[in-house]
């Protein structure tokens, strides 16, 4: 009996592992994962340095891991196990009764270089600089987390960031607005980001600070584009027990038209772009509905002739926010600093714009953003 047992196990083990290995190595490989919405590791390339410090093994490990046979099923199984063992948490995502919340979205990063770059920008800038840092759903719905995870760290991070900004920068407090309105659908249930309605609520305040009067909510026609949106928290946890989210388009029919909308890459080449790109609906990255493909610079010209020009420096949080601004400016230029690889001055003269708005989610603010390039 013992011989049967050991032989069976040996054969099963070798057949299983080697079959999985062969399938993993030779199956057709995509470059992105639909469920996880991220770029998968590519085939590692050999370099002497990587061989000396062992990075090549790590890269090959990630390659095997990302393309592992049956990965999506294994992740589902992992989710089922993790949610039933210990806390209701999968991969750092806490599952509350009606939404997913990130339990560890604020990494312990330095933001000094970031604030320094914003301050240098405002010192060299002739117009006015406005700054808004947005909380994530964890910052606004923290009380849904277990007590020990509800640390208020986002509020603290925003406060200290605002404290580090220079006197010339006008800060706009979005946190209090969102916190106050948290009975409404202002944050996605499956994503850390705010919804279009959340963006509208903050827009009302921001646009007043920028010197305009906001457009009333009932003037907008709201189109529910999809009800199947699952965002980055779903990508991390693969948990489908929470209702999927809605992506809305706010349209002001009597407002001004968009005359042109062009996106630019680092080389300066222009492509046609749209404020809302419905071709992303049904893909793995539906959030790209807002402002379309991720791009370095987007220049939007409207039918208004008021000669008002605005520069927006932003991350993904601003994507659903920018359309609201188009009703007030003749030209808006939107810059994503994380896409910037060369000096900004090569692309445009910032002083052509009399106002600059920095709009970032607090989870994305770190020195990794390369903000120094804005000032060169």
């Amino acid at each position, binding site marked *: 009996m013992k011989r049967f047992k050991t032989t069976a196990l040996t054969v099963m083990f070798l057949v299983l592992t080697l079959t999985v290995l062969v399938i993993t190595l030779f199956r057709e490989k995509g470059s992105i994962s639909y469920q996880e919405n991220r770029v998968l590791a590519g085939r590692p390339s050999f370099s002497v340095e990587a061989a000396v410090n062992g990075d090549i093994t790590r890269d090959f490990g990630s390659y095997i891991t990302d393309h592992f046979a049956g990965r999506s099923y294994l992740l589902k*199984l992992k989710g089922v196990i993790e949610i039933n063992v210990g806390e209701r948490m999968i991969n750092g995502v806490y599952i509350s009764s009606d939404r997913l919340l990130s339990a560890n979205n604020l990494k312990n990063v330095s933001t000094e270089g970031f604030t320094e770059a914003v301050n240098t920008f405002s010192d060299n800038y002739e117009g006015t600089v406005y700054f808004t840092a947005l909380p994530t759903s964890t910052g606004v719905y923290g009380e849904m987390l277990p007590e020990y995870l509800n640390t208020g760290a986002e509020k603290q991070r925003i406060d200290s960031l605002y404290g580090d900004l220079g006197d010339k920068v006008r800060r706009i407090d979005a946190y209090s607005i969102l916190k106050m309105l948290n009975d409404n659908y202002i944050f996605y249930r499956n994503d850390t980001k705010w919804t279009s309605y959340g963006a509208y609520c903050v827009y009302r305040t921001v646009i007043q600070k920028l010197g305009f009067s906001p457009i009333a909510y009932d003037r907008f026609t709201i189109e529910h584009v999809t009800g199947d949106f699952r965002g980055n928290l779903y990508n991390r946890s693969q948990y489908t027990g929470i209702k999927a989210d809605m992506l809305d388009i706010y349209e002001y029919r009597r407002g001004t038209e968009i005359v042109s909308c062009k996106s630019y890459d680092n080389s300066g080449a222009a492509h046609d772009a749209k404020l809302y790109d419905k071709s992303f609906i049904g893909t793995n990255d539906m959030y790209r509905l807002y402002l379309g493909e991720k791009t370095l610079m987007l220049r939007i010209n409207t039918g208004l002739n008021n000669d008002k020009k605005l520069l927006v420096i932003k991350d993904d949080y601003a994507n659903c926010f920018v359309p609201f601004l188009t009703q007030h400016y003749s030209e808006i230029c939107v810059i994503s600093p994380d896409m910037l690889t060369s000096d900004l001055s090569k692309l445009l003269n910032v002083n052509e714009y009399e106002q600059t708005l920095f709009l970032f989610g607090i989870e994305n603010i770190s020195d990794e953003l390369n903000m120094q390039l804005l000032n060169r």
Partner: protein
Amino acid sequence: MEFSSLLFIYAFFPIALLLYQFIPKAHRNSFLLLESTVFCGLIGAGYLLFTTLIVLMNYIFGILTANVRNKPCRRITAAAFIAANAAAAIIFTNGMHVSDLLRSVLRPVGVCFMTLGAIGYIYDVCEKKVAAEKNIMNLALYFMLFTKLPMGPLIGYGSFSRQLIGRCSSIERIGEGIELFIIGLAKKVIFADSIYPLFFAVNTLDVKQISALSAWLGSTGYVLCLYFTLSGYSDMGAGLSRCFGFTLPRSFRYPCVSIGMNSFCRSWHIPVVRRFEEMIASPLHRSRASNAVKNAAFIACWGIIGLWYSFRASLFVWGIIIGTSAVIERYLVDRKALKATSLIYTSVIIIVSAVFFFGGTMSYSLHYLFAMIGGNNNIADGVSFYLLKSYALVLLISIYASTDLFRNLILRSKKRTFKNIADAVSPIIMTAILMICTALISSSGSSGSMLGIL
């Protein structure tokens, strides 16, 4: 490359095992050394260089030591070589913080086990327990054998070199080895990784505010996590070694539920503890030293075991507490003491002393101890009830799994048919456990040791 990574389980190990079967017996040791060299090289070429240096160094040390005829002189020589090995390990593990270049090249894999193996080898050569190895390939295999490189289990050079010559490798041993490997993997990936968040949660709280209940939960979680991590890695190491024909000693004999501190000392990380005792405490036992000296040596030995885990003052304190309580127990506790009483005080000592194991600094550990006795004026709060509710089941199952109850259930069953059924379904159960472990590491691809020791 972690044992508990997809790359190892699904690529390196099965390929290494399969290729090994096709090698004629006479060349198997050389081939195993080749595989181990590849393993080290995959960790990093810089790391391979480091292990090669350790092998060369101790090869020369061994021959030099053996050639000193005069016993006291030989001991002095050996002591110097042992110090050199210890210094190399301390520089290696702490040098990572000093220079970026070193950090990019060095990988702290198995340094503690390699050093202890080297020290033990020099000691054995000095005491004439083994002859100095003339064949550098054999010594290289002792240090670099990939199945025991990262986390042991530790084995003396004498018994290892005997296995180099005559060891049988049959499909039964491979099956046993794979079974042990999967059990070890489950200990690490299923148990240790499930309890770790409990400890982590308590550890993120402010130590000056945590409630007594949280503190006890955190420390208990840590003890279990530590046991399942160390014992899991040891089982994986022993299992893999068995696949290649080596029989390595068992590392843990259910220490978490020990009846008495001395029993804990005898069942915790057995090969490591024995090695230290053999070198530090045993020589005194054979001499005519007084009991006080012997006891002091025993306690000091445990202090050094603590330092071996990680070179920090608080770990030295951990070892001293374990050693001292075992000595006190010998004098104070009546042999006829109730099993339950012994069980309770032993568990309490283990859980309390663990505070020094995980505390980064002495002041943190002391604050934590203060919290455990309710010093923060907080016996239990919302956080602790939440953690208790979330982890009660995990803790209970882990505690059960850390005892020998389940094993005995199978072993003691008198009915042959029951045993046969258990044997028949065991390959399926093992494969299922492997799949669960695979699922649990599928998102990041590996599950590293999170405890920051060894």
